[in-house]
């Protein structure tokens, strides 16, 4: 059950992370709106934390015997 949940969560998270990071990079390169860039970079950092949590949980669940 949890394995499936973690699997299902992985794809939208991957899509979200890619979009956020590309967006932050583009805003940075454009040099526009430093405040927006700051907020976007915060989102990227938070997203990174969510990803780290997911990766850590996957590693834990992987050690458990499959039901």
């Amino acid at each position, binding site marked *: 059950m949890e*394995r499936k949940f973690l699997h299902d969560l*992985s*794809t939208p*998270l*991957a899509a979200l992370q*890619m979009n956020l990071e590309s967006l932050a990079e583009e805003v940075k390169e454009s040099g526009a709106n430093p405040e927006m860039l700051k907020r976007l970079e915060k989102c990227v950092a938070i997203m990174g934390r969510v990803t780290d949590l997911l990766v*850590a949980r*996957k590693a834990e669940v992987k050690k458990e015997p499959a039901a």
Partner: protein
Amino acid sequence: MRSPQETTLLLVDDEPELRDAMAYEFESKGFRVIQAGSGTAAFSRVENDPIDIVISDVRMPEGDGMELLDRLKARNPFSPLVILVSGFADISLEEAYDRGAEAVFPKPFDRKQLGMMVQWLMRPLESRWAVRPLRIPVDMPIGLRFQSGTTLQGKVTNFGRGGLFVALSSTMEENPEEDCEFHLTTGMVEAPNISGRARVRWVQKGDQPGCGLEFQFADTSCRRALLHFLNFLKTRAFIPLR
């Protein structure tokens, strides 16, 4: 080496959101990108289009990634090259590599690492293996705990043969020669976390604060993972500068 403009990628995933995000990423770098929503659809694209690299999800309802891999490699083991992106416990790394995948990434993956892998695969084998890089940029979270009780969070941006560079948000107070415990989140399927002890060899101040750490101790499983990783990187630096 082929340019991105001369390289066609086929992105295969039943989730259009992830396909679109990857397509945007690679198209903005100049690649020609084709998308498919299943393994079956992907295989027919390969038969009709000159595809260089396939990036495919593993679990899909109509023709999964492993089936696609088998069909592609039975057709021609050398082309297209295949990168598998695995959700969770869909496949074992051993099986994926044995059946012909050139690379395997867990989801969610690091887009920079995926991009670097594509660039790497675009090189002919001979030139790929001839490169001994001075440093290989990575981006891995690391936590440091010093004997004083101070804890620091940073990012490992480079590995050397004997240590690593940690980028920090501010200059650290600790002095060279102090020891710390480190906890590295690699994001790699085979070893997601590596812990051990390291010694600060130098502290970098200024615009890009950080420090150079030399590995001192890791337990058996972490040591193995670290050695495996470092053996893959084969960088020239012992402890990389930045």
